[in-house]
């Protein structure tokens, strides 16, 4: 089963623009994480936001969480070619298990 669903499924923007991806989930969570996956590689953890947090920043990344709407967004500012990847949200289910969404494929055009 997949807890989170990302939107859009695919996104293509010009280098230097901002990219926004959204994640909706179904049940209550303790935290939500975002991961990046470059083509043919494993996933890399980007950021975790806890259910009592509304916004979190890490470098060019900004994550928001709205538990009333069961949704989160990931904003990447000033995009670069190296940001081309798939991005997944993951929500906790149980004490130590996380469930991944279906991902957003981000392409950065030069």
């Amino acid at each position, binding site marked *: 089963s*997949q807890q*989170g669903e990302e939107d859009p499924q695919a996104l293509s923007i010009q280098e230097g623009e901002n990219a926004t991806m959204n994640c909706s989930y179904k049940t209550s969570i303790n935290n939500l*994480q975002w*991961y990046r996956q470059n083509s*043919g*590689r*494993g*996933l*890399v*953890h980007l950021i*975790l936001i806890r259910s009592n947090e509304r916004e979190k920043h890490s470098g060019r990344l900004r994550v928001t969480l709205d538990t009333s709407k069961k949704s989160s967004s990931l904003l990447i500012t000033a995009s670069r070619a190296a940001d081309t990847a798939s991005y*997944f949200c993951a929500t906790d289910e*149980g004490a*130590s*298990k*996380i*469930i*991944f*969404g*279906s*991902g957003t494929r981000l392409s950065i055009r030069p």
Partner: protein
Amino acid sequence: EAGVAQSPRYKIIEKRQSVAFWCNPISGHATLYWYQQILGQGPKLLIQFQNNGVVDDSQLPKDRFSAERLKGVDSTLKIQPAKLEDSAVYLCASSAPGAVGYTFGSGTRLTVV
């Protein structure tokens, strides 16, 4: 620190054959996960180990898939016999108690023909 090691990197087999994947997690990481990622989808958890014990294998197709982590360190995932729908990337991840996020290996891409 060394990352999560997986082998082989690629594997092509015929349906009904068997295959095994190997994972060596980061040293000291007690929890190990195997995920299946079908093309265009997010990873799906197959099995979770805590040291050498199984915590969750609810989505593991036990009629054909098996996994073990005998000494609480490295792990193997086996498929026997393989079906066409098993074509996917098999990802191994590990985590330490209280750590933020999982560390993933690069995965094994399995193609069943």
